[in-house]
């Protein structure tokens, strides 16, 4: 039945992770709109004030009758509309650009993560909800950095520069206090950024530490309650959480201090411009332009609100980038031709390694043959799973110790020729069909796989092959059976089953395993089991 198995697609090379090409055009548009919005706001306030001053002075003289108010009034309306429309446009375009970037970044990141060696080592950390949540926080901090940091700070920086230049032209005296304030703000921002770095790192560290303690305590809840230590054991993790909160409070206090400083910039600049205009002897109409400038400063002040958030977002992005970079140490996988069938797989004095690199026991020498499934026995901790992973090419091992049909094969070849079913296999949030990982199989084949693992009724109730399932929908036993259905459908010459009957009751486990081994009878099948499970027609290897 397996003779017609389609040829096996080999893994393609995954290059080193690279920052996806930025889509610059939308960002440029967002930047232009942001400038337009800020300029509209500044001019709206400034020109309105100038206009009122001008008409008030004109109103005292006969010039009132000839004053052309149409142009300034039209300008003011124009600025009002520009400000509103450009602000809306900035939000929409900016978010669209950020989302487009996000889609590209996440696709690339996913591929890069897949090539990180730690995925194949013991215990996938990001399988834990709490680690995953931290990871997603980091990804998001980088995703929105442009929107939260680059865009507002660029706009603000340019606006301030322009206003400083205008001030230098109109009321040079006022530049002195303004520059002093700007310097103070820059120093404040640098200080905040550096402290935020340390605070954020300490917060994350503290929370993770507390979470580890809490996780360990919860897993030991029965013994701890029996020994009356449960309440006491909760103290340390919750103190840890509280300490992290206190650290967050310190950061918020610093943010508040910096915000106070930043919020003073615009009003002080305004007062300086006014005072220096008056002091330099300008009177009457000559004061109108400085008044315009002064209120323009005030309008910029609106955008400075929340300056500390920009600084903290910047610090978060920096930290997130460095954390994410730790994952991206790819091991290149090259294209390999995989034979459809292998008749024997030999381990030749294979040194056994634990996931942490430690040597376990003595090297093993054994030959697995197609049609003769082999069970690995041994007490828990003796390295059954590690040996399976070594065979699957998931753990590094001295090359040349694994021979397929007498030819030594490297990590890449072993990965390509084996289907590895880990005992903690997960359920993807997707359709049943996608969860079976057999895109070329017919519906009939999929259904017979499901009926072999006694899931057909369950899946029919859940909406058939195109029904949507998630991890929470299936029980542990059902997830394990789905996992066995994947093995049933696999077309790889070597099938590795880690604790295939875990979470299944004895009778059912035996039935399913027998059917599965019958289906895979022409393949090399290696399974591990901590109990003395030995189906008919299998060989057994005891690991020490």
């Amino acid at each position, binding site marked *: 039945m397996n003779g017609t198995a389609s040829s096996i697609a080999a893994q393609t090379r995954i290059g080193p992770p690279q920052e996806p090409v930025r889509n610059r055009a939308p960002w440029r548009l967002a930047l232009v709109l942001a400038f337009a919005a800020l300029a509209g706001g500044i001019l709206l306030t400034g020109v309105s004030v100038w206009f009122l001053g001008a008409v008030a002075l004109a109103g005292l003289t006969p010039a009132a009758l000839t004053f052309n108010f149409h142009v300034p009034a039209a300008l003011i309306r124009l600025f009002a509309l520009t400000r509103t429309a450009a602000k809306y446009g900035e939000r929409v375009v900016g978010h669209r650009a950020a989302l487009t970037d996000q889609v590209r970044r996440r696709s690339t990141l996913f591929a890069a993560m897949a090539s990180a060696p730690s995925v194949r080592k013991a215990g996938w950390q990001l*399988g834990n909800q709490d680690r995953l949540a931290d990871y997603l926080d980091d990804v998001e901090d980088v995703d929105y950095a442009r*929107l939260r940091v680059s865009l507002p700070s660029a706009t603000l920086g340019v606006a301030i520069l322009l206003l400083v230049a205008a001030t230098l032209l109109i009321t040079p005296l006022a530049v002195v206090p303004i520059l002093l304030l700007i310097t103070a703000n820059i120093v404040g921002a640098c200080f905040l950024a550096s402290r935020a770095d340390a605070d954020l790192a300490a917060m994350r560290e503290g929370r993770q530490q507390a979470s580890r303690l809490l996780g360990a305590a919860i897993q030991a809840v029965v013994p701890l309650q029996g020994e009356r230590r449960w309440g006491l054991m909760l103290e340390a993790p919750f103190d840890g959480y509280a300490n992290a909160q206190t650290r967050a409070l310190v950061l918020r206090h610093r943010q508040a201090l910096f915000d106070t400083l930043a919020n003073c910039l615009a009003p002080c600049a305004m007062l300086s411009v006014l005072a220096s205009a008056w002091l330099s002897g300008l009177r009457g109409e000559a004061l109108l332009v400085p008044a315009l400038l002064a209120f323009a400063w*005030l309008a910029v002040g609106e955008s400075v609100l929340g300056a500390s958030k920009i600084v903290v977002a910047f610090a978060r992005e920096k930290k997130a980038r460095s954390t994410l970079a730790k994952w991206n140490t790819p091991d290149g996988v090259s294209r390999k031709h995989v034979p459809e069938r292998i008749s024997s797989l030999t381990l030749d004095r294979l040194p056994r390694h634990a996931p942490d690199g430690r040597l376990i026991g003595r090297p093993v020498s054994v030959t697995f043959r197609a049609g003769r499934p082999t069970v690995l026995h041994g*007490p828990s901790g003796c390295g059954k799973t590690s040996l399976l992973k070594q065979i699957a090419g998931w753990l590094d091992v001295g090359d040349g110790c694994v021979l397929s049909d007498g030819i030594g094969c490297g990590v890449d070849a072993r990965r390509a020729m084996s*289907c590895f079913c*880990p005992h903690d296999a997960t359920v993807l949030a997707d359709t049943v069909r996608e969860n079976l*990982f057999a895109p070329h199989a017919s519906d009939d084949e999929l259904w017979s796989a499901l009926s072999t693992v006694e899931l057909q009724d369950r899946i029919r109730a859940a909406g058939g092959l195109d029904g949507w399932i998630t991890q929470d929908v299936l029980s542990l036993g059902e997830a394990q059976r789905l996992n066995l259905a994947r093995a049933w459908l696999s077309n790889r010459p070597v099938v590795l089953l880690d604790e295939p009957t875990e979470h299944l009751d004895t009778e059912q486990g035996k039935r399913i395993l027998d059917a599965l081994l019958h289906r895979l009878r022409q393949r090399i099948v290696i399974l591990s089991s901590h109990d003395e499970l030995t189906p008919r027609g299998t060989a057994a290897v005891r690991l020490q």
Partner: protein
Amino acid sequence: MLETVLNRRGKRPTGATPPEANAGAPAPGKTLCIARGLAAAGLHSALALQASRAMLRLAFIGLAAMFVGRMISGNASWLLLGAALVSLILGSVVGLVADRAVANTELEVANGLLGSVRRALAAALPGDIQVMPLGTLIAGLQRYPQAVAGLAVGHRLASTMLGLGPLLAATVIVAVSWEAALALVVLTPVMIVFFALIGGAIRSGADAQEKAFGRLAAQFADRIRTLPTILGNHGLNRERRKLAVRLDTYASGTMGVLRIAFLNAGIIDFFSSLSIAMLAVFLGLGHLKLISVPGFADLQLWQSLFILMIAPEYFAPFRRYAEQYHAKAEGLAAATALDTLVLAAHPQSPAFEATIVTRDLAGAASLLPRTGLVAITGPSGSGKSTLLRHLAGIGSAPSFEADFDTHPGIAWCSTDIYVPEGPLDAAIAWQNGPCCRTRLLLAAGNVGLLDDVLLPGGLDALIQAGGENLSGGQRVRIGLARALISGRAIFADEPTAKLDPGNAAMVRRALADAACSRLVLVATHDRSLAMLAGTTIDLGADNRQAREKVA
């Protein structure tokens, strides 16, 4: 639940969305009630501070407008400038204090919530704790309390200021021209009609988006979580292509909702810009004596500037409230999550066998000898572990303290004991007070931990966080070594089940030796161990009958 928060965050990356979008909030759950209770004390002072900051800001703007007006008219009043500067400085200081007060109150609320969670956990039965989704709980404890605090404090303040702020601004303008103030107040209902219309559109848009793409919301997170499975089944390339398409689809759907949602912020911007533009033109015409609307004509320059500059402040609280939308959505989701995770009253689930066991073997506890080996035997599923837990007093939370006095304390020994990270000797000495190395060596040797090939290094063998590098059998033996040193009565759940024959024999001997000087109670299906017991509680046939009777 965490997914909900993450989705929401993904959906609305920055604030500035609708005040009304989430108006139909459900009745507050327990978490929210606790948070509100905790926030009450700090809220008043924070509110007072924020109100005074708003007033000082109005004072600064008003005084600055007056100064400019007078200056252009020819008489600069340094007194006004000084007053403006003073109100600026005072406003900044009060603002700083207000921000700190908000942060402090939020911390109190978050810590209070953590405290309630801790109390709830401390009082919970082991069964209830074991069914909690551990990862979600831990991820939630790191994030939810702050989110709920943000809702109970920050959002609450913003919504209060939404009522107070415009009122203050209008009052200040009344001092110059009540007609102008009236114009602003009349504009507000128009704005609110717009809000209501857009709020409805956002809700229906978000619902449609949820219906169409809800399943694609957390695909990236899901694929990262399931990476090893994908690799094991050679599904990487396919998943990669699928992920790119799905992320793209979801992003465009999200953009559709955002486009409408941003209209809300747009309306606030529009009205605030419009008010400036209209007032400037009206007041200008008044100065030119081209119109004679009362309240807009015959004003001094400082008066019209005053109106012009205060008017945007009327709209500022609306904007600040809209920015809090994010905090609201996140806070509500977090509160619901905490409710369902921990704080909700669980249906009491004291394993139903326990009640039967108790009824049938009510006297068992009092019959336990002071010393000797007692074995609880029976087929699997007959309630051995349950009885052991019951005899240890687990689950009878109310009598915790009283129990402690009568019981000199017990040492528990099973595969799920707590093992701290670090060297083996520390794991054995854990909670046993200071003990000399000889005793540690003796205890470890008695259970075969010193020459275990899978845990090399003797007493200095390193144990990883969470005991990841330990097998079940090694954990049991660490527990037993710890129990031997403690001198307490030993309660052991299947102590020999995960051991190879040699180690099992060693453990049996150690248990039998310990039973000479204290009570050793084991739940076991190991016949050789049961043979050593002086007393045996058999949960065989009669108990099954009892269970059937109750069922």
